[in-house]
């Protein structure tokens, strides 16, 4: 464990040193941040992935000094939340609420919990914290629907709030492990690194990575969505052929 951490630190330092060796521009910035990878491949054996967010600041980090907040967001998609109701003894889906844009992934972390670092207004404005995620919805108005959505996202680890604090190394270096569960959706992910000084965000760095499916499963999915007619015909032919061939292979005698 400690050996791995030491290796990581060395890698960070090497990368940052590389960054600092470049002429002028980087040296004057208050905040420099990078991701350990910019591409996550969902293969058939995908069990999740963790990405390292790391960087350095000009001023020392920690109590009394600057603080860092990391916010990651996955692609948004519409979702429907339904409540089951009892109809003549059977539990059927009843009223529903439609959420137009729900981030499929969300994570927030800070060198200290973000709610201690920033005033509520600023957090709402920047969407910092699960409570601040803008969730417009139509349909049933009861508050239970939003709560159910949040609960489900939190339970499946797709929405994370302060999973662990951002670690500080040597007062100016910071690093944070962003854990992507196996159920992450493909798409473009944004990572925003914010430098907080005196309860204000003074500098930000926008980073990003792409999650994409690879391998034969991804190819099949692509054909099924892109050319459904061809896919449908292929399914018919494949099933018919497999059934015929199988009966020839397995015929006894």
């Amino acid at each position, binding site marked *: 464990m400690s050996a791995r951490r030491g290796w990581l630190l060395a890698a960070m330092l090497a990368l940052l040193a590389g960054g600092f060796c470049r002429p002028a521009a980087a040296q004057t910035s208050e905040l420099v941040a990078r991701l350990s990878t910019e591409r996550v491949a969902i293969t058939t054996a995908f069990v999740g992935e963790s990405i390292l967010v790391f960087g350095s600041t000009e001023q020392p980090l920690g109590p009394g000094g600057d603080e860092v907040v990391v916010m990651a967001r996955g692609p948004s998609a519409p979702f*429907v939340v339904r*409540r089951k109701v009892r109809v003549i003894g059977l539990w059927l889906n009843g009223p529903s609420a439609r959420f137009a844009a729900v981030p499929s992934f969300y994570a927030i972390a800070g060198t200290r919990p973000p709610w201690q670092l920033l005033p509520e207004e600023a957090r709402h404005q920047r969407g910092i914290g699960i409570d601040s995620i803008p969730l417009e919805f139509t349909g049933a108005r009861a508050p239970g629907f939003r709560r159910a959505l949040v609960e489900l996202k939190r339970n499946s680890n797709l929405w994370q709030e302060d999973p662990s604090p951002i670690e500080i190394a040597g007062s100016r270096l910071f690093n944070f492990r962003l854990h992507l569960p196996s159920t992450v959706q493909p798409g473009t992910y944004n990572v925003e690194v914010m430098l907080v000084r005196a309860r204000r965000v003074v500098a930000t760095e926008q980073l990003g990575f792409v999650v994409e499916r690879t391998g034969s499963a991804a190819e099949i999915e692509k054909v099924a969505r892109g050319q459904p007619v061809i896919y449908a015909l292929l399914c018919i032919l494949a099933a018919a052929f497999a059934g015929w061939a199988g009966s020839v292979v397995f015929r006894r005698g």
Partner: protein
Amino acid sequence: MVAVLQIYLPIAEMSVDALLLVGVGFGVGWLSGLFGVGGGFLLTPLLILLGIPSTVAVASGANQTLGASVSGLLAQARRGNVDWQMGGVLVAGGLFGSVAGVQLFAMLRRLGQVDAAVAIFYVVVLGSVGALMVMESVRAIFRRRRHGAAHRLHNHSWAHGLPFKVRFRKSRLYISVIPPLAVGFLIGVLSAVMGVGGGFMLVPAMIYILGMPTAVVIGTSLFQVVCVTASVTFLQAIQVGGVDIVLTLLLLLGGVAGAQFGAAMGGKLRGEETRALLGALVLAVAASLLWDLLRVPAALFSVGPAF
């Protein structure tokens, strides 16, 4: 790691144990070979009970049934046991039925009721089929070896009054095309909503309602099943997007092997007791689906992608 072969289903968007699916296919195929049943009526609910989404279970179940029926149809056609003319009329009705069934399915999905609707369809159909099977077997056990066990109901005189009469040479029938069209349509709807072939209801309907000779019934019903499940596969794939070819092929791999073993055993094992067991199994699947509808759900809220 545990010795499981996890495989990612591209359309169901979930990782499953490939060997488990091949095993399920084998088991259902074995039963279908043993009892001469299609097997789709067991496969789709088993997939749902395993956690495969209803939309994928139904569409892939239909696709699997297509594959599982092809070789049977070829064998029957080679022996000249298919009434292509009657089959054509049934298929025409079946194609309309599958279109209507897939529309119904897509509408239910928009309303968020597809899981419950599929379960209700299964509870009703499997409940009645299972009950009839158990009753038939019990009656046969008590009155073993009596003669003339089955009788045709030659009271379809109402059908003689209908227009558009056609002569079906192979079936030695001169009847209106309306009853076969209606039978094909209804089976097509059930096939689309439940992901089955429908031979269970089609074969008795062909004998008792249409009055076809039994020699051509199996072959002709397989013709209808192959055509209608192909149509359901096509429509489900382009309209609902639930056909998972990886799932289908895994199930077929086990299914065709199981069917051959089952058929080989079927010759030796013809007891009414085993048929009663199949009926009991069908009833158990229906009861488990019914229980899921009746009990207070663990989570009152469900979240799903919007369409």
